[in-house]
């Protein structure tokens, strides 16, 4: 459904050019939940913004293609973009629940979302809002007439998710949807997302720095490091049979609350500097298995069987 090919996004910063996304390939299929996992500064949010063609003023797309159902997103006209955003692909930004307008009621937000998409009557919006708010388990009668300050953080987050689903997008992008919710609310929201997915069949791209919620919701997981996808495969494959050393290192550094959790190891070394990324494979200075070749040649993202992709020179040897 969504094809990203060779995408490079750079930012002009005082120290030079920061390549947030570097020659990246990624696919999102119909009716799937893709978890995009990476640490801060790896470019995962920039990738999401670029998919909707909203890049900061100091950023620029430096090559590559984004195809949504064979439509070229990066070369869309203003009008086409308006139709594409929110009815094809919608996004819930990081910290989105703080982005509700404090002087607008929830229903006015819903109306506002649809303004630039013609042909929706107020009745239609009302009906659709009711349906969606029920889906996120809010009392729609009460919530629609309220102002944002009358809602708790968890409720606002659910309102924003409902807003994003209003025009029945085919792909919903969620950028760190949990970052400001407390633990009990997080769990509940995760369940709601699973429900939305079941009822609407929409695809989701779930962006997070935390591997744990991905285990519960995703069908496929893409791991990002320093602007590139280093591994992408089915969720079981990623968690039970990870191939890339970075994925392995990340998995062995999450303390779990179940089981004995004895074999934890910290990942050595600091995160890479995105303005001056390491040569070759960006992970090689921290990698336990790095050889000379790793510091010279960037490994391609290659098929490792069963629809899995991995970008590592040595994945065949590392079993």
């Amino acid at each position, binding site marked *: 459904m969504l094809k990203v090919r060779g995408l490079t996004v750079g930012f002009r910063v005082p120290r030079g050019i920061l390549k947030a996304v570097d020659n990246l390939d990624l696919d999102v299929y119909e009716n799937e939940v893709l978890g995009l996992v990476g640490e801060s500064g790896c470019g995962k949010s920039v990738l999401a913004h670029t998919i909707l063609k909203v890049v900061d003023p100091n950023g620029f797309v430096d090559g590559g293609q984004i195809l949504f159902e064979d439509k070229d997103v990066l070369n869309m006209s203003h009008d086409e973009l308006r139709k594409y955003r929110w009815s094809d692909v919608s996004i819930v930004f990081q910290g989105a629940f703080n982005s509700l307008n404090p002087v607008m009621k929830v229903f006015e937000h819903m109306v506002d979302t649809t303004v630039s998409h013609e042909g929706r009557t107020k009745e239609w919006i009302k009906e659709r809002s009711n349906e969606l708010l029920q889906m996120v388990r809010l009392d729609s009668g009460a919530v629609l007439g309220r102002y944002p300050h009358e809602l708790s953080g968890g409720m606002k987050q659910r309102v924003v998710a409902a807003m994003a689903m209003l025009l029945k997008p085919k792909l919903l992008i969620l950028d760190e949807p949990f970052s400001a919710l407390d*633990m009990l609310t997080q769990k509940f929201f995760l369940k709601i997302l699973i429900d939305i997915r079941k009822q609407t069949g929409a695809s989701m791209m779930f962006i997070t*720095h935390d591997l744990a919620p991905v285990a519960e919701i995703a069908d496929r997981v893409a791991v990002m490091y320093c602007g590139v996808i280093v591994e992408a495969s089915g969720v079981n494959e990623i968690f039970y049979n990870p191939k890339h050393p970075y994925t392995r290192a990340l998995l062995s550094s999450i*303390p779990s609350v179940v089981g004995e959790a004895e074999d934890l190891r910290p990942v050595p070394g600091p995160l890479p*500097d995105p303005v001056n990324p390491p040569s070759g494979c960006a992970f090689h200075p921290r990698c336990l298995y790095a050889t000379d070749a790793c510091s010279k040649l960037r490994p391609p993202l290659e098929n490792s069987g069963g629809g899995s992709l991995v970008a590592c020179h040595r994945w065949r040897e590392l079993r």
Partner: protein
Amino acid sequence: MTEVPLLRAESVTKTFIVGGGPLTKAKVIKAVDQASFTVEREENVVLLGESGCGKSTLGKLTLGLLKPNSGRIEYEGKDIWALDKRGFSDFRRNAQVVHQDPYTSLNPVRTIYQSLAPAMIQNKAVSAKEAYNSVRELLSLVGLVPPEDFLDRYPSRMSGGQMQRVTLARAISLRPKYIVADEAVSMLDASLRLGAVDLMLDLQKRFGVSYLFITHDFGISRYFIKKSRGKMMVMYLGSLVEIGDGDSVVRSPIHPYTRILKESIPVPDPKIARGRPIPQLRSLEIPRLEETPSGCKFHTRCPHAIDICSTEVPLLRRVGTKLVACHLAGQFL
């Protein structure tokens, strides 16, 4: 343990008054409510709770940065608010803190050397001449090698992980006996967090400090306590609800709040994660701090609550090897 504990909190309560302008009525918020616990020498205590539960306030109380409304904080057997000026500054030198956000806890216009040296010189830990060498040693101790590369750097030229190491170095620079680590590793990326915990434990072995490790992260606190000696405490709306040795609180929680918290934490294992039941709560909303529920504060959300829970405050009592504040504890074992 007949020895005097390093630090003891006894029925400590702290309230804040918020608001109270011409149009609004002042509200009283009980941030910490009758908290009692001890920190033994070279023991680690994990304080676990969700945001806004009062865990940072409790940390500040034990440092003497806030004065309790009632109750006592004792350091080496002496009430810290009854100490003379000299005794109090002695206590403050022995009790240090590492804050959550390394980006805001270092002065941006001072180099690392300028951030670390003055406190050591002022407290006569080293002479001005020796300061340079001592700071160098400190930096290599926290893994910033070679130290010469970092001495004259400004915080803006360092990563978050490196800055957090500097704040740790600063906390141990006066060789304290007690360090409050307030969400000290939460801001770090997943791949760096364990390394930072390992460093804290390594410093503990060298200098024999005790940590009060404040966090909302069940997993990391379990890693921390399993690799050291100590106990874990769970806080809900200002009250300690469960205290247990080692990682027993995570392994076999008793209090309904701790249980639900554990069930809510995502597990990095697809098969286990998908097979887990949804935690049952009576209400998803956290009560507002200015109107905490009567009796047990968790009763409005607790799936097991009975009549007594809304009328009588449960006190911490021994259940098995743990201390639990729940009327029904024991039936859950």
